């Protein structure tokens, strides 16, 4: 057994698992990093990173065969020729939708850190106080000041470009120089500030694309190709492969084991602690046990919860961490696809150079600073202005040389923004374990019962109308508000199901992400979230993970976890 023992086991190699592995190994622990999917090596395995549109037989579009194989992924943009193979095999890994849930999974080393949108925002004090202020769910066991130094810590390493704005609702961070707004966006931003009396703001997105090289990490600054989701050969955006995995490897303390499906946390009844995990090898279907002093679950929000539900069921029928009755509950996402777009007159003598992998951001302005709506919480916007391309309508021309000439020139400027709205934690929104359907490895699957409630539906009206109002105030013409079909999960910001809290009776994790029922098991991915805020969550997972590791290692040294 000795060769199967490590100081720590990390389950999952995405954004938070990569951080856990880096922090634990840098603190001297011998770490086993388990990943259920295949390995993807930095640069070498980014098979499409250097391809151009004409290198794809279908120029990036999806085929009928791809559609048939991906009944869930086909619901949105992730199903395309460029990122084919970077998303889960839905035939092998099914799930049950009691209610529609769009679950877009990346089962490979790096997980969705290779595919993420890279928008990186700090939570505000308003977010941490939201539940107690509204008398909803449970209070966060931490406040902004608990996480602020850890935000700084992870920002400095990951490399976040952005501008300091001095806003309480979206705290500034340790930024690399910001990317630029284009000239239309700059003018619209100024108009909005003026027309809304300084209460609404628009500025360049804060994004995990580095604008200055990080030679110590072998990362080159962003080259503005806008091909991030194919894997960056420059290492210009933060991913497990570009940043945390090489750092962990450098310590000599890391063992990475791909094709390792963790089926359960092994629980020691007498010591009331985990002793390790059980692994099902995805290739040879053999079962292995690995033991460790501490286990970090970073398998992605819903899969970390799946592992817990499948663990220690002889003591707790609903799984490890289920004693509060909250495991699997309070599923959240960010609801989106509501906003507005319109046409911009003028600026015919202006264009841009380079493909900026980023847009503008409008932080939340609803239900703060004295504003009161008939719903709780709020939303932010992300958007961009650009000139129309060849796929636009050209008045009066439709065939021939003049038509071709017209389409070879850029069209008018347009601008659009879409909301990212907070979803409230609701006990009713839950996942459960179903033994009726099995995956390709004979394992039970998750069953989803999640839906938008009245608060979100009321908020969506503002998400559309406020975008219309702002664009019109800025002089944008032909403004068209929209509220398009949104399936929960489509935000790819799954959160909740193993929430942090102050009381073991009402939460799964404590203020340091420890499972109340097994203190040497930490959950630091999206599962831990007690509420959802409206900002993109990944930076917060990074900060929570680094903080939890720091705590775990101190406690290990004190002997409280052993």
């Amino acid at each position: 057994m000795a060769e199967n023992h490590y100081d720590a086991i990390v389950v999952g190699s995405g954004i938070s698992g990569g951080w856990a592995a880096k922090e634990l190994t840098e603190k001297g622990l011998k770490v086993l990093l388990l990943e259920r999917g295949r390995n993807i090596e930095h640069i070498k395995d980014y098979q499409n990173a250097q391809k151009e549109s004409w290198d794809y037989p279908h120029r990036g579009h999806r085929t009928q065969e791809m559609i048939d194989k991906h009944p869930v992924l086909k619901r949105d943009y992730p199903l395309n020729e460029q990122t084919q193979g970077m998303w889960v095999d839905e035939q092998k890994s099914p799930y049950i939708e009691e209610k529609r849930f769009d679950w877009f999974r990346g089962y490979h080393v790096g997980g969705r850190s290779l595919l993420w949108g890279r928008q990186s925002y700090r939570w505000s004090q308003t977010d941490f106080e939201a539940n107690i202020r509204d008398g909803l769910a449970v209070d966060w066991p931490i406040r902004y000041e608990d996480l602020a130094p850890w935000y700084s810590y992870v920002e400095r390493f990951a490399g976040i470009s952005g501008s300091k704005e001095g806003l309480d609702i979206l705290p500034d961070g340790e930024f690399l120089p910001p990317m630029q707004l284009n000239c239309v966006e700059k003018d619209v931003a100024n108009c909005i500030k003026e027309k809304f009396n300084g209460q609404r703001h628009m500025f360049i997105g804060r994004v995990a694309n580095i604008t200055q090289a990080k030679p110590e990490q072998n990362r080159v600054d962003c080259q503005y190709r806008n091909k991030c989701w194919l894997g960056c050969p420059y290492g210009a955006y933060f991913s497990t492969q570009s940043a945390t995995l090489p750092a962990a490897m450098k310590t000599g303390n890391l063992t990475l084991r791909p094709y390792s499906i963790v089926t359960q946390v092994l629980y020691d009844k007498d010591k009331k602690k985990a002793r390790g995990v059980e692994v099902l090898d995805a290739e040879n279907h053999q079962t292995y046990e690995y033991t460790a002093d501490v286990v970090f679950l970073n398998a992605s929000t819903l899969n970390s919860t799946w592992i817990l539900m499948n663990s220690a069921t002889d003591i707790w029928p609903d799984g490890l961490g289920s004693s509060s009755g909250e495991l699997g509950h309070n599923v959240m996402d960010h609801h989106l696809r509501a906003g507005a777009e319109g046409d911009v007159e003028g600026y015919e003598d202006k264009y841009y150079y380079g493909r900026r992998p980023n847009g503008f951001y409008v932080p939340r302005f609803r239900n703060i600073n004295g504003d009161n709506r008939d719903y709780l919480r709020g939303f932010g916007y992300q958007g961009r202005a650009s000139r129309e391309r060849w796929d636009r309508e050209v008045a009066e021309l439709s065939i021939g040389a003049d038509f071709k000439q017209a389409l070879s020139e850029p069209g008018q400027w347009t601008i659009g923004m879409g909301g990212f709205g907070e979803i409230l934690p609701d006990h009713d929104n839950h996942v459960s374990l179903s033994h009726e359907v099995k995956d390709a490895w004979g394992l039970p699957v998750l069953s989803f019962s999640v839906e938008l409630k009245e608060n979100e539906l009321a908020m969506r009206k503002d998400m559309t109308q406020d975008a219309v109002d702002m664009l019109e105030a800025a002089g944008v013409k032909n403004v068209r508000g929209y509220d398009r079909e949104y399936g929960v999960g489509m935000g790819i910001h799954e959160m909740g199901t193993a929430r942090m809290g102050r009381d073991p009776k009402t939460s799964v994790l404590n203020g340091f992400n420890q499972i109340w029922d097994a203190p040497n098991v930490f959950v630091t991915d999206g599962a831990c979230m007690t509420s959802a805020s409206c900002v993109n969550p990944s930076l917060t997972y990074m900060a929570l993970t680094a903080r939890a590791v720091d705590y775990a290692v101190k406690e290990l040294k004190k002997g409280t976890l052993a």
Partner: protein
Amino acid sequence: MNRRELLKMISAATGTAMIGGGALLSGCSREPSDSDISTAQLVFSANDVQLLDEIAETILPRTDTPGAKDAQVGQFMTVYVRDCYTEEEQNLFHSGLVQLQETSLATYGQEFIDLEAEQRLELVRELDTQAKTQLAESDQPHYFTMFKQLTLFGFFTSEPGATQALRYVAVPGRYDGCMDYEEGDRGWAT
């Protein structure tokens, strides 16, 4: 958010969402067709590729920059239709090729490929008008809408289209959000 941009692959130039693999963009899901046309009839011949090339070249001709034929748009269309269209859509596309030839024979007494440049332009303009009318009046796309969409998409995403008719820099290296533009300057491919 730019990961969401693929959603914008809507071909406004033809007045409707991209037909085929992008079907979700129009929000419709198509049931498998129970058409009795065998798949053997849904195979393109070399003549079909040539005909598609000529139709595409009429829509986007070679000027001082390459045209659709230079970009082998006909060949591209056959691959896209075969792999990205539903069987129902493939049927419409294939029957469109037959109908176009019939129209050419009925109007000019010759196959499309033998028409003078002016006659080709006239016929294609007429089909374009028909297609626009049909789009305004019905949910069923006209086959010419398919030809035109795939011509534009195939051409402007091809190497000659993207790099010569349009502009493309593989590794820009920097971003300038306020570059001067003069009328006639080519647009960026992406």
